[in-house]
């Protein structure tokens, strides 16, 4: 589904992604973790070309994401992206947030788009908030609307860039529940997150990154119980015992 081949990215002098080669299969749920500045957000943002790369290739569903001849808008329409800061459109209601792209890009008529949006808002448990503006929603509710908005384009892949990091702790659960539900439905998901509970229970695989490299790729069981790389062992011990 997603293949990275020798991908390198620099921010000026800074080597942000170093020789990334990785394959993510259809229906796979992959969690990317690692310390801040390790390149995990950069990695996920290169998949739908929010960030350019300087060398290598990224192929998604058979299409070269960084080729100049790619129809980038059509390509991005097939990849759902969920942001840390939700980025809901504040001038539109929850429902309108979910109908904007289906109407204008997929060409759905108003009633079909509305029906789809209500179905998706219901799926994330927010059908009664359809007419609320984002400002009237809690962070957790906003993020669930953002997931519904991404799903409205019916993408085969969903990317999550720290979807719960901007949330108050009591709202993390509701968002993770929705994500777990999607995973059990067979959605291909790549998720940058610090939620180790989610990684342990939902992920098929964990990628551990540091300094722009993928240092470890393992099943959750192996990663949490038998981490191979010293940097991964250090990371896991830091997040388990933050006060030392």
């Amino acid at each position, binding site marked *: 589904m997603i293949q990275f081949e020798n991908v390198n990215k620099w921010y000026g002098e800074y080597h942000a992604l170093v020789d990334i080669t990785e394959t993510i299969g259809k229906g796979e749920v992959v969690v990317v973790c690692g310390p801040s500045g390790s390149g995990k957000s950069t990695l996920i943002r290169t998949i739908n070309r929010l960030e350019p790369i300087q060398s290598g290739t990224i192929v998604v569903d058979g299409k070269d994401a960084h080729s100049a001849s790619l129809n980038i808008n059509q390509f991005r329409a097939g990849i759902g*992206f969920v942001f840390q800061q939700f980025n*809901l459109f504040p*001038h539109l209601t929850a429902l309108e947030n979910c109908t*904007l792209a289906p109407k204008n*890009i997929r060409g759905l008529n108003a009633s079909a788009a509305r029906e789809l949006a209500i179905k998706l808002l219901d799926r994330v448990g927010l059908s009664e908030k359809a007419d609320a503006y984002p400002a009237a929603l809690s962070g957790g509710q906003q993020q669930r609307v953002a997931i519904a908005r991404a799903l409205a384009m019916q993408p085969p892949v969903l990317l999550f860039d720290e979807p719960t990091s901007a949330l108050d702790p009591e709202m993390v659960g509701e968002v993770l529940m929705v994500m777990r539900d999607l995973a059990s439905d067979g959605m291909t998901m790549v998720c940058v997150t610090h939620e180790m509970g989610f990684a342990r229970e939902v992920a098929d695989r964990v990628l551990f990154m540091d300094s722009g490299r993928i240092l470890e790729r393992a099943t959750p069981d192996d990663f949490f119980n038998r981490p191979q790389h010293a940097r991964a062992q250090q990371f896991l011990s830091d997040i388990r015992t933050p006060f030392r």
Partner: protein
Amino acid sequence: MAFDLNLLLVGTYHDWLIQGLRLSLGIAGITLVLALPLAMVVALFRLSPVAALRWLGVMFVESIRNVPLLAHMLFWYFGAPELLPDSLKRWLYAGNIEVLSATVALTLYTAAYMAEDIRSGIRGISSGQFEAGRSLGFSFLGTMRLIILPQALRVTIPPLVSQTLNLWKNTSIATIIGVGELMYQAAKVESSAFRSAEAFAFATICYLSVSLILTGLGLFYRHRFPVRSA
């Protein structure tokens, strides 16, 4: 000489002043209609991913904003027609070239300022909004049209109203190239009838009341379309 209100309400001088008011309103109206879309295009140029377009936008804004309006008026009236071929020049001089030059000068001048207001309104929208639009598959222009501009214009309305106020007052500069607008007609009444107080009181009240109406419209808009943030 007591203040003669009647002179403003009926008769030749009244007619002259009303003619001037109408022309001023007409010039301001047409200029606004032309300047707004031009300003939008210039603002989008300045934010474009294409460097050449950004440059064009910067050149437009800086070369126009940094020269006084009076110089623009004189250039478009005296200077620019000289650069045109003779046949076109004759056609222009047969028409009302004063009003045309004034409208061109005011349109460019107003658009340069409005472009900056629109640009800063757009820049005030977080980059996350833009990324969210692009991630859903919207093009640069589609994202602008459906996501960024509807938000940016709401915050841009107050500065645009004040630019429209400036435009309204700036129409008076056209008097210098002989456009028969409000100020010109007031001066004509003054020199014909020596009724300075009446003539300029009329002009003052016209400028003031139109300005207050514009301010009122701005307030209404803000009430009707409040700025929403997430």
